């Protein structure tokens, strides 16, 4: 009768080493940006959307590269709603202006308002979120409540009120201020959460332990490690800014009539939708493509920078 304990199954001991994953020891150290770049550059959608963004930039900076036809003078009423011809590939608007030229010249309005409103909105949101998340306590409570106030007003509606109030001072800057000044609360929330996450890290404690001041730690270690969501949100905010600009132009509270704007052109073309739909559809395509390329770019950046998003892809 042998001892029952000894009859228990014992796993055979293997002497050979289990295979380890190949670890890259040579070469540059990996970090978030390098990983993101490695992920992004293999995705065709990234290059396609980047190409559209570059095209848009080129249109905004150098419109005469694309068309020699001026967008607002040389409009002949005899050309009203005419179809495309050799020199005017997309036909004419109701006023007899060249549709293609107006689309090309409208790019700079969309892009400049989008960029400026993003800089303003992301800037305010970043500063508010960083301070609230890093310092905490009553500062956090105060800034978060202020953020809640702005968050509870849909920013396009707020911009409508602002632009109604500043009717006399409608330019790219006030328009961007109206959009960015009310759109920052969402950015602030995300940045605050990210800063609070980074603040827990050990290297922050270490930085304080070696005698760095609180502010210096913030600048040297917290900010660079909490910047990724800001870039993603900024790209998406650019798309939002373009949408907001066109919506406000459509509502008639955008920039003045002398400024080229896709939203205003679409709004003007609506009266002849039944007889000449193309003068409405072409600027709509331009607008949607511009927004879509920034949205796709933002989504890809989010995927590349957030390992958790990569897992559910």
């Amino acid at each position: 009768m042998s001892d029952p304990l000894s009859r228990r199954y014992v796993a055979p001991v293997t002497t050979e080493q289990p295979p380890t994953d190949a670890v890259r020891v040579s070469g540059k150290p990996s970090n978030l940006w390098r990983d993101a770049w490695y992920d992004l550059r293999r995705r065709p959608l990234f290059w396609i959307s980047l190409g559209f963004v570059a095209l848009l930039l080129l249109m905004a900076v150098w419109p005469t590269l694309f068309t020699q036809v001026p967008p607002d003078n040389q409009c002949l009423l005899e050309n009203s709603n005419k179809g495309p011809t050799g020199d005017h590939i997309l036909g004419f608007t109701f006023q007899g202006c060249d549709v293609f030229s107006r689309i090309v010249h409208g790019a700079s309005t969309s892009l400049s308002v989008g960029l400026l409103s993003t800089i303003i909105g992301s800037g305010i949101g970043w500063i508010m979120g960083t301070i609230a998340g890093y310092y905490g306590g009553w500062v956090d409570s105060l800034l978060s409540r202020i953020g809640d106030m702005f968050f509870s007003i849909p920013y396009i509606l707020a911009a409508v009120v602002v632009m109604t109030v500043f009717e006399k001072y409608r330019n790219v800057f006030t328009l961007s201020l109206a959009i960015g000044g009310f759109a920052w609360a969402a950015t602030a929330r995300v940045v605050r959460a990210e800063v609070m996450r980074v603040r827990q890290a050990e290297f922050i404690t270490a930085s304080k332990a070696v005698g760095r001041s609180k502010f210096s730690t913030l600048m040297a270690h917290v900010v660079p490690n909490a910047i990724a969501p800001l870039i993603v949100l900024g790209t998406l905010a650019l798309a939002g800014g373009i949408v907001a600009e066109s919506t406000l132009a459509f509502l008639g509270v955008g920039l003045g009539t002398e400024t080229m704007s896709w939203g205003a052109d679409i709004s003007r073309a609506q009266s002849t939708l039944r007889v000449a739909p193309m003068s409405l559809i072409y600027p709509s395509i331009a607008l949607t493509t511009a927004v879509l390329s920034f949205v796709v770019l933002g989504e890809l950046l989010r995927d590349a920078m957030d390992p958790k998003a990569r897992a559910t892809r």
Partner: protein
Amino acid sequence: MFSYIVRRILQLIPVFLGSTLLIYALVFAMPGDPIAALFGDKQPSQQLLDAIRAQYHLDQPFIVQYYYYMSGLVRGDMGTTFSGQSVNDVLARTLPVTGRLAVLSIGIEFLLSIIVGTFSALRKGKVSDNVALIIALVFLSMPIFVMCFLAQYFLAIQLGWFRPTVGGQNGWGDMWLPAIVLGLSLYATSMRLMRGSVIETMNQDWVRTAYSKGLPQYRVLPVHVIRNSLIPVITNSATNFGVLLVGATVTEFIFNIPGVGNTLFRAILQHEGPTIVSFVTIFVVLYVLVNLLVDLLYGLLDPRIRYV
């Protein structure tokens, strides 16, 4: 639970006061004299001007005026529009119309995003999933007024499936086209949230258990997967409500629906500052209330969330 509701409402008060103060301060900065505008070309006497100023408290400092407005709001008097109508009356007329549009479009949004989101998640990485994602991104990128016009042109004018405008006849059945457009503008974010949420839920132990004890797909999906994946979609509908409000403003104008948004849009076109403010304030109130409601809904969907 009760104390949680009370605390949430108490937290809302400073936010609400702040946001209305913000809008009110903007109007206060508005150039031009509203009383002089009432008389048009006529030149009223100084006494009359002073009397009307006193009547509307326009001779008081800013914060006192704000107090009068807020105390009126609390008592249920939301002020008067530029043309002298009571905002309460206008709301009583227009809110039911907008309510029908909102319910229809949120219904379409939910139904579509739950169905497409679930199927996308089940076919993760396949062609149909990618196509669904791209379509959603296009809807996300298309400004609402563009979508309205395209729907109007292709579905109503070219194909004749719907009437191009709604007008006075605005029962439930008359608002399909604007509701579809509005629903699609909300659809993209919730569909993608649903997709991510279902992917996460499918990896849970209880789903594996449900399959391994032999439950069929049609039982596992609705009961074990979809129900547990709904929370992000519901949460998102609170944020989406802001999109809905802006969308309703544009949609109601383009399809000529006599709702709240349409009134706001016409006020914007005619530069009626005070009317714009009262309606934007109402939108803010609605937005804040919907956010509260969604917060409270959490507990019903997920018993693990307790209010302390």
